[in-house]
């Protein structure tokens, strides 16, 4: 059994339902994402179009993150999922440097690497990943890509010429496929990411990696100083204190 994902970008309408479902299901902290939907506008007014691309871990068969992890915190499950054991992670960020898709983040609450696990805990109980359940147009198709009769395998067969993966040149063999995508949506170098204010918010870089409320010294003191007290609420409070409404873009 090898579990895989396919997103039909022709169906995706950018509702971000999957993104929210993922956040809720996995309690993904503020300022981090396991799954995100990226909007890309193409063309010049009035001849324009907008595409939506859900982006998550590709669960590569030849995963660079699994290879570089020095403590096997990133490891394969029998069903092909690249899982992560946050109890073992040392927070070296090697996986973040290795993942060509930028799918791994440093959890600001636990100070360990984290990523999409295809909701491995739900799959273990016979359920579908939260994002699949939440999608109103069934653009997310999930299943066993080694089973020729599975929905995903048949979908791939139906659209065989149009099935793509991100960055095939990296030889990572992703098990996450797209239908209906193009270079301008799947290749991050093919679209411009403007500095400053965008359609809805200020899109630039994250200033921090991991827990911005705790400095380097705190990492050493954490086990003795109640580091675990930081949660979404305290992160939100600190962000509000740091930036005014206007500075955030008035969203």
């Amino acid at each position, binding site marked *: 059994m090898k579990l895989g994902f396919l997103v039909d970008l022709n169906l995706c309408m950018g509702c971000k339902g999957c993104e929210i479902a993922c956040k809720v299901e996995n309690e993904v902290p503020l300022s981090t994402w396991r799954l*995100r939907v*990226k*909007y*890309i*506008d*193409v*063309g*010049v007014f009035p001849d324009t179009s907008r595409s939506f691309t859900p982006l998550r871990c590709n669960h590569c068969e030849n995963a*660079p993150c699994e*290879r*570089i*992890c*020095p*403590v*096997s915190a990133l490891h394969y499950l029998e069903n092909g999922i690249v899982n992560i054991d946050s109890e*073992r*992670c*040392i*927070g*070296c*960020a*090697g996986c*973040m*440097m*290795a*993942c*060509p*898709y*930028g799918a791994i*983040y*440093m959890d600001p609450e636990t*100070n*360990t690497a984290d990523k999409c696990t295809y909701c491995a805990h739900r799959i273990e109980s016979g359920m579908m990943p939260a994002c699949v359940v939440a999608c109103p147009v069934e653009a997310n198709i999930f299943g066993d890509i080694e089973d020729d009769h599975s929905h995903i395998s048949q979908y791939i067969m139906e659209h065989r010429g149009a099935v793509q993966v*991100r960055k095939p040149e*990296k030889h*990572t063999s992703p098990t996450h496929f797209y239908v209906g995508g193009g*270079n*301008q949506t799947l290749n*991050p*170098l*093919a*679209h*411009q*990411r*403007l*500095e400053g204010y*965008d*359609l*809805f918010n200020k*899109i*630039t*870089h*994250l*200033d*921090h*990696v991991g*827990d911005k409320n705790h400095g*380097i010294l705190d*990492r050493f003191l954490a*086990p003795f100083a109640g580091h675990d007290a930081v949660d979404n609420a305290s992160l939100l409070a600190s962000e509000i204190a740091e930036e005014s409404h206007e500075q955030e873009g008035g969203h």
Partner: protein
Amino acid sequence: MVESTIRATQAVVTLDVPIQGIIWGSIITVNMWAKSIGTGVVFLAGFLWFRHNKEDMPNLRWTMPLIAFIALNIFLIFTLVDLHQPYRMVNIFLHPSWSSAITWGSWLASLFLVLIAMLMFISIGEKFPGVPFKGCLLTKFGRNNSALYEKLMPFVLFLAIPVTMYTAIIMAQSSARELWQAPTEVMQMIWAALMAGSAALIFISGSWTKEARKDLALVLTFSVFFSFAMYMSEYFFSFKSAEAEAVLAFVHSGGEYNIKFWIGMVLGFIVPFFLGMSHMKSENMTLLRFAALSALVGLFLVKDVWLKIPQLLALS
């Protein structure tokens, strides 16, 4: 921001999350820089002892392990500091994954530090019997096992090679960063070690013979030349991947990284090259020390830029 758009499509990101900033920052630069000194002085000591009599470099026997010990501890402390869960460093030894260059590096560097510490205790014990205090068991052990130094040195020298190179393999395993390619990074690490090692030893070479100092200047000059040549060919001709090209095009267009890179090139490579050459012609110790200082500062700046620029790329 780094990207190379197709102009005709006018494709623009209109809604997305912020992309990750620089993940491995200056802490990792200090890590690499200090390791270059730590292994470089070992290479240089091996080379000088092969070429000259030990009497030509009277203090090298104890200063080399001392410098290496200090530099390696800086390197290890900064490695630890960069971890988000520093206490879990022990997991590398309890649950090692041997496919990772980080694991290999941690094990090899730890072993290397132990051997360097032994060399230090032996040589300090011989040279300064009362240091750090009278009756110190470690230095007493060193004094009583003086011959161990010569037996350990070949292993230390051999081990310095993988300890120097493993960071380049980590960078190569960081497959999201196309700018870092294994062959060039391995060579750059070796040149950096020779540069940093010779530069560090120049500061303690006041009592050495002219010939020994000339050899230091020679190694410094050669290593900065070859390292410079490699950086220039990578900087201007890395057309093997779209990502590396996009990163370099961004840096070429100006900005802080461009300025920092060229300041680093001048200080770390061009200045030491000419000062090193002039030292070989007419010995001037002050200028050689300036060349060494300049090389160490420039090396740090260039390493810092080279580490950070591929991380500016949006990966998805």
